[in-house]
């Protein structure tokens, strides 16, 4: 694809030789815990040399609730609302991963309609989450109105989720064995209508923001992760795909019914900038929205009347053993390491592998040599949610 604007090579920040002799020591700057660019309560200690970041140290734990300890004292069903609160912008995907781990150890069969509805809610949630990422990222870079456009569409999804689950943010909707509630035909028709408008809206967003010259100059060629960096740090999701790896668990290790669906895995193709930079990471998300719409349309075609809840014992007891389950969530691969001691109503150990935690650990890698404003763009581009980082 031809670049719409040739923005050329980025200007490398250079230190003025005259002023360099004046500097005596690095200045420490605290970004956060209440900085708008940190999406929550993250503190990044930055050592700066005038405008240039020499070193960045993330300090985590401001939102630490130790849900892993709480989970050890709850029964298997009681953990679901706690899992919701990890990534509160993609609660459906969080629930599904945990529930899938329990179901695997239990050996439960989920009815086809239940499984399809799970896919649909997960993809709707992915769109909602990416809309949020789109809005807040533009907000980070100083554009306010995209945030409002994004919320208008996100609101439609939240309305639907509110109707089926009773909650707008933390749903407790996907249960062990299926889903709590069935969708009515009227609601499904609204999902279909939403898909049509969302496709149009996505085009508008690309015109408005993705291809905007100021936006491109702020993000293209900024904060580049090479593929090797991604492997070293264990990056997944849009960060890995933005760096050019065509890896998606839904495609490469299909779980649930994803193998039946026809969709592409978008990767960073350097339409603008270079592979692995902020713009490509951002644009992968915008392309994923289109693919999610494609999946939802196929779900609507496949849906047939039936039960949405399988047969599950009243008291859930898992066999002795362990399982490591990973799912493709909007921010990367969420991993659930569930250990059971056998003949117990509670998990012996629940470890959550959080993609945002991994991506936060990559910040010190790209920080040195960046301008402070570019560093803000880099933090925004990995799209962290602190509830998931700190757990």
């Amino acid at each position, binding site marked *: 694809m031809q670049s719409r604007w040739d923005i050329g090579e980025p200007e490398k920040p250079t230190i003025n030789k005259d002023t360099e002799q004046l500097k005596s020591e690095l200045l420490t700057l605290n970004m956060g815990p209440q900085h708008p660019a940190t999406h929550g309560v993250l503190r990044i200690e930055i050592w700066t040399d005038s405008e240039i970041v020499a070193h960045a140290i993330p300090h*985590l*734990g401001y939102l*630490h609730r*130790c849900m*892993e*300890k*709480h989970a050890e*004292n*709850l029964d298997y069903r009681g953990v679901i609302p706690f899992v919701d609160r990890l990534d509160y912008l993609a609660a459906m995907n969080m629930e599904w991963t945990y529930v899938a781990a329990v179901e*695997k*150890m*239990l*050996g439960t069969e989920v009815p086809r309609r239940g499984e399809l509805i799970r896919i649909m809610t997960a993809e709707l949630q992915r769109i909602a989450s990416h809309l949020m990422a789109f809005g807040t990222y533009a907000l980070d870079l100083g554009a306010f109105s995209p945030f409002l456009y994004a919320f208008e569409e996100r609101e439609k999804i939240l309305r639907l989720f509110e109707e089926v689950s009773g909650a707008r943010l933390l749903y407790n909707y996907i249960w062990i064995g299926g889903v709590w509630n069935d969708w009515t035909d009227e609601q499904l028709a609204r999902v279909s209508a939403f898909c049509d408008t969302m496709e149009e809206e996505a085009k508008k967003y690309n015109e408005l923001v993705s291809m905007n010259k100021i936006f491109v100059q702020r993000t293209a060629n900024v904060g580049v992760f090479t593929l090797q*960096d991604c*492997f*070293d*740090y*264990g990056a997944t999701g849009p960060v*890995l795909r933005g760096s050019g*790896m*065509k*890896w998606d668990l839904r495609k*490469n*290790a299909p779980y649930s019914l994803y193998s039946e669906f026809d969709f592409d895995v978008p990767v960073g193709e350097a339409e603008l900038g270079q592979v692995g930079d902020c713009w490509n990471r951002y644009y992968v998300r915008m392309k994923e929205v289109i693919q999610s719409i494609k999946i939802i349309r196929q779900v609507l075609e496949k849906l047939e009347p039936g039960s949405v809840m399988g047969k599950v014992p009243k008291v859930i007891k898992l*066999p*002795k*053993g*362990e*399982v*490591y*389950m*990973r799912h493709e969530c909007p921010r990367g*691969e969420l*991993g659930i*390491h569930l*250990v059971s001691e056998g003949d117990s109503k509670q998990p*012996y*150990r629940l*470890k959550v*592998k959080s993609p945002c*935690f*991994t991506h*936060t*650990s990559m910040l010190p*890698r790209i920080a040195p040599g960046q301008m402070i404003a570019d560093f803000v763009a880099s933090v925004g581009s990995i799209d962290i949610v602190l509830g998931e980082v*700190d*757990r």
Partner: protein
Amino acid sequence: MLNVDVNKLAELINKNISGANATVSIPEDTKKCDSSITVEVSKIYSVVEFLKTNKEMPFNSLQVISGVDWVEWMEVCYMMAHFDLQNPREFILKVKVTDRVNPSVDSIVKLYAAANFQEREVYDMFGIRFNNHPDHRRILCPDDWQGFPLRKDYVAQKDYNGMSVYPDGKMNFEDREFIVRQDMIKKAQESKAQ
């Protein structure tokens, strides 16, 4: 969990790393649970180095490091993964730490940068020290917090910098969440005394 022939992999490790003593644990029902490989704790660095660099079954990424406290021993689980479009691989590598007072494992930060934060978290939650770690601090709890929360015998401290951790009248101690597993604590104390 993607399929890896753990028996073959354990054989490979034993052949190339002397003293690794890789043993495979396969669950009764392989459809329900995952199998894993346990190696000697002193050889973890060379085993992971071998896994990263070997030609036959390389693993290019470390997903997560998790810990499990079994009271008699503590486990550190390394979820190794290979991102490859043709042959994706994944398996659980484990080491056992029997010392509860001064547990320590060699750090693998030099091999996988991902281990930096993950090892700090294991230290924070289980108190397992990682030798040669470049930045060995707590990560989620405050630096001056006492005890390691995810150990089974953990009891939260009463005061923290003049603040009450569980204020009287504000907590429902009959809630099952606050029932500390007394049997676990007793077991741990016995093993500490030995």
